[in-house]
């Protein structure tokens, strides 16, 4: 199974809303690494390094939360229903 990254912000309400869904997927065996980007510049730089991939899928900007599959360079962002996120993480 591919390893995924969730880029999130500590004070982002969308990110906060998605956390229980992400934790549920992790509990089900999905490999999702959660990286906070506003209080960790290393994580922020990593997210910036994926700007072409992320911006293309997220309104031309770096938005959080962003879910990234580094292997396939696929990304989705924002609040997503659990089933949709699971389907994306499974593909």
């Amino acid at each position, binding site marked *: 199974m591919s390893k995924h990254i969730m*880029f999130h*912000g*500590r*004070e*982002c*309400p*969308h*990110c*906060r809303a998605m956390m229980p869904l992400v934790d549920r997927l992790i509990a089900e065996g999905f490999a999702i690494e959660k990286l906070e*980007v*506003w*209080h960790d510049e290393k994580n*922020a730089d990593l*997210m*910036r390094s994926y*700007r072409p991939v992320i911006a293309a899928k997220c*309104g031309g*900007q*770096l*938005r*959080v939360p962003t879910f990234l599959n580094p292997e396939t360079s696929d990304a989705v962002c924002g609040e997503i229903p659990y089933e949709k996120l699971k389907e994306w993480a499974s593909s």
Partner: protein
Amino acid sequence: MKKKFWRCFVCNDVHWGFKPPEICPTCKVAHAYVEISAKEAKACLGPLPEPGFTKADFRRAIEVFAAPNQFKVNPDTERVDLLLEGMFSNEQNHGLRYCPCRLRSKDFEEDLKIVCPCNFLIHETYQGLEKGECWCGLFIKR
């Protein structure tokens, strides 16, 4: 085209933009602005007040900003408090009240687009939607 500084020769208001205001919004005198240097603009502004803008000040400012518009500040106070926490943290750590639901690119001009309030009217989460909102949900359509 690059923005320039302009000073009202009557009341010393400073404007930053492509063109000067035709009528000074403070003293109402017409054709009163002259182009000045950034150094002069900074000097005209004088020492900035400390400790600056509080969360309560900003909250009040966005309520006033929203009042005549077709959007309002989200009545979900828990959400607004969290967003303000993030914006003020970003101001302290990164210089400006950047949206906590996006990430700055480190390109100053580009990053001005994510300072709150941003121009969310053009965002796909707002434009053309009956229940539109800015990306972070601070502002929602009435």
